C-alpha cells in the first residue's frame, strides 16, 4: 500500500512537470502545425536560468542562509521571463520567416534551433561545458509523512505551482478574449485574421507563454533535484523533453487538456513501471505507451480524429 501511494505521488509530481512542458509543444502545434523541437532546450534553459539567477542573487548557495519563499518565487519569475524572451526571439527570427513554407522546412529549422541552443549553452562565456550544482532554494527535509508516503516541501511546491499554472492556462485559453483568439488562429489562421485578430501577435504570445511554462517546469525540476550537479548538454534534457512530447501526443497533440492528462499519465506509467516491473526500462515504458496509443488511438486520448487538411 505504501509503495503504491508513494509511486502514485512521485508519478504525479514528475507527471505534472511533463504536463507543463507538453503544454508548450501542444500549443505551438495547435497554431503552427509543427513540432517545436527546440522546446526541450527551452526547458533545459529554464533549469539553467534558475541556476544563474540564484547564483547572481546569492540564493541557495552552499553555506548561505535558507531562501525565503518569495525570493524563490522571484527566481521562478526571472527564469520564466528570460525563457519567455528567448521563446519570443526564436519565433521571430527562426520561424516567422517560414510562415508559408512547407512544414518540413520548419521542422528541420526547429532541429537547427535546438542544436544551436545546446551548443551555445556550452560556450565558456555562456554556461560552460562543466557540470554546475543546482542551488538549494527549498528545504529538502521531509515535511510530513502520511500513510508511509514521505512528502517534502519541494514536492508540495512542484505540485502546487504546476497545478496553479495549469489552472491559469485553462482560464487563459477558455476564459479570455486572447484565449478565444488563440483557438481561432489554431482553427483557421486566415479566417482569424478576418476577425481583426493580429495573428503574428497571437503566435508570438503563444511562444512566450509556452516557453514560460517550460521555464517553470525547469525551475520546478531544479526544486525537486536541488543539490545535484547538472551538465549543460546532457542527453537527459533531451529525454525529459522527449517524454513531454510523448505526453502531448498521447493526450492528443494540439489539445491543451490532453497535454495535462498525457503528462500525468506518462509520469504515472514511468513510475509504476519502475516501481513494479523493473527500473531498467524507465524510458521504454513511456515509448511503449506511445506506440500503443499511435496504434490504437492515433489522435490521442482527447484528440479528435481529423482528416489531414490540404
Amino acid at each position, binding site marked *: 500500500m505504501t509503495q503504491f501511494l508513494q509511486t502514485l505521488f512521485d508519478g504525479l509530481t514528475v507527471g505534472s512537470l511533463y504536463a507543463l512542458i507538453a503544454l508548450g509543444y501542444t500549443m505551438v502545434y495547435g497554431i503552427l502545425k509543427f513540432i517545436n523541437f527546440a522546446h526541450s532546450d527551452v526547458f533545459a534553459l529554464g533549469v539553467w536560468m534558475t541556476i544563474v539567477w540564484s547564483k547572481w542573487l546569492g540564493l541557495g548557495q552552499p553555506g548561505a542562509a535558507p531562501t525565503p519563499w518569495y525570493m524563490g518565487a522571484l527566481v521562478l519569475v526571472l527564469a520564466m521571463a528570460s525563457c519567455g524572451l528567448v521563446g519570443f526571439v526564436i519565433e521571430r527570427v527562426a520561424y516567422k520567416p517560414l510562415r508559408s513554407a512547407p512544414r518540413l522546412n520548419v521542422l528541420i529549422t526547429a532541429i537547427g534551433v535546438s542544436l544551436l541552443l545546446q551548443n551555445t549553452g556550452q560556450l565558456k562565456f555562456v554556461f560552460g561545458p562543466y557540470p554546475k550544482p543546482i542551488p538549494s532554494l527549498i528545504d529538502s527535509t521531509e515535511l510530513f509523512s502520511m500513510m508511509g508516503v514521505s512528502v517534502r516541501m519541494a514536492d508540495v511546491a512542484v505540485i502546487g505551482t504546476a497545478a496553479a499554472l495549469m489552472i491559469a492556462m485553462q482560464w487563459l485559453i477558455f476564459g479570455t*478574449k486572447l484565449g478565444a483568439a488563440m483557438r*481561432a488562429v489554431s482553427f483557421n489562421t486566415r479566417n482569424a485574421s478576418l476577425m*481583426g485578430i493580429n495573428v503574428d501577435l497571437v503566435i508570438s504570445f503563444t511562444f512566450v507563454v509556452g516557453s514560460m511554462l517550460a521555464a517553470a517546469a525547469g525551475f520546478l525540476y531544479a526544486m525537486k533535484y536541488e543539490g545535484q550537479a547538472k551538465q549543460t548538454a546532457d542527453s537527459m534534457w533531451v529525454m525529459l523533453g522527449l517524454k513531454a512530447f510523448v505526453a502531448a501526443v498521447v493526450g492528443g497533440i494540439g489539445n491543451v487538456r490532453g497535454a495535462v492528462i498525457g503528462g500525468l499519465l506518462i509520469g504515472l506509467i514511468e513510475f509504476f513501471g519502475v516501481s513494479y516491473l523493473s527500473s531498467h526500462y524507465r524510458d521504454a515504458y513511456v515509448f511503449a505507451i506511445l506506440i500503443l496509443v499511435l496504434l490504437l488511438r492515433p489522435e490521442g486520448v482527447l484528440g479528435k480524429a481529423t482528416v489531414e487538411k490540404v
Partner: protein
Amino acid sequence: MVGVDDMLSVENLSVSYGAIKALHGISLRVERGEIVTLIGSNGAGKTTTLRTISGLVRAAAGSISFEGVPIGKLPPHQIVRMGIAQAPEGRGVFANMSVDENLSLGAYARHDKEQIDKDRQRALELFPRLRERLAQSAGTLSGGEQQMLAIARALLARPKLMLLDEPSLGLAPQVVATIFKIIREINAGGTTILLVEQNAHMALNVAHRAYVLEVGKIAMEGPAAELAKSDEVRRAYLGHG
C-alpha cells in the same frame, strides 16, 4: 471616374497565384450606402477580389483605397479595424467554438462593450435561429445557419463596408430568399455591401449596381436593373436562351 462618394475604390488590380494570373487589372468602386454585386462564373476571380480587398492576398499591381486611404499594404486585422468585414467563401465559422463565441470573435477588434451588446441583439433579431443555438457548437449548424452566423459575425464588427462571398452557395431557395431579404435590411440599416454571387438572378435583384467578371477581367458594369435586362447577361448568367 473616382467619385466623391466612393467608399471603396479599386484601380487596375492585378493578382497572381504563382504563375497563375487570377485578376488582370480590374477596376471597381462602391459608393456609400450601395449594394454592389460582382457576378461571374467559377474561377472568374471573385473570391480573389474580396481576399485582396481584405488583405489576405497581395496585389501584384494596382491600388485599393477605402474612404480615400490606401489599404493595399495593410495587414488583414488592420483592414477590419478600418471598417471592412467579410463573410468569406465557405462561411469560415470556427466549428470548434460555440455560436456565441463566434459572434464575440466578430467583435474582437472593438472595445465599446455597450454598443457591442446592442449590435449582438440586433444581429440576433435579424437571425432568430441563431439565438436558439447560442450555446451550440458552430460546426453542428446546418449550412444555412452557418451562413447566417457568418453574416451575423461580420455585422458584429460594425463594418462600414461588408464583403459577402457567395452567401447563397448550397442553400435551399427559401433560405436564399431569407438571406437576401436580410442583406437588404442590413443595407437599409446603413451598411454598404459588396456582394459576390453566382446566383445572378438574386444578386441583380437586390443590388443597385453590378459588375460582371470574366476570367479576371471586368466584362460589363452598370445599374443592376439594366444588366439584368441585357441579352448577354441573360444568356450567360440568367439561363435565358
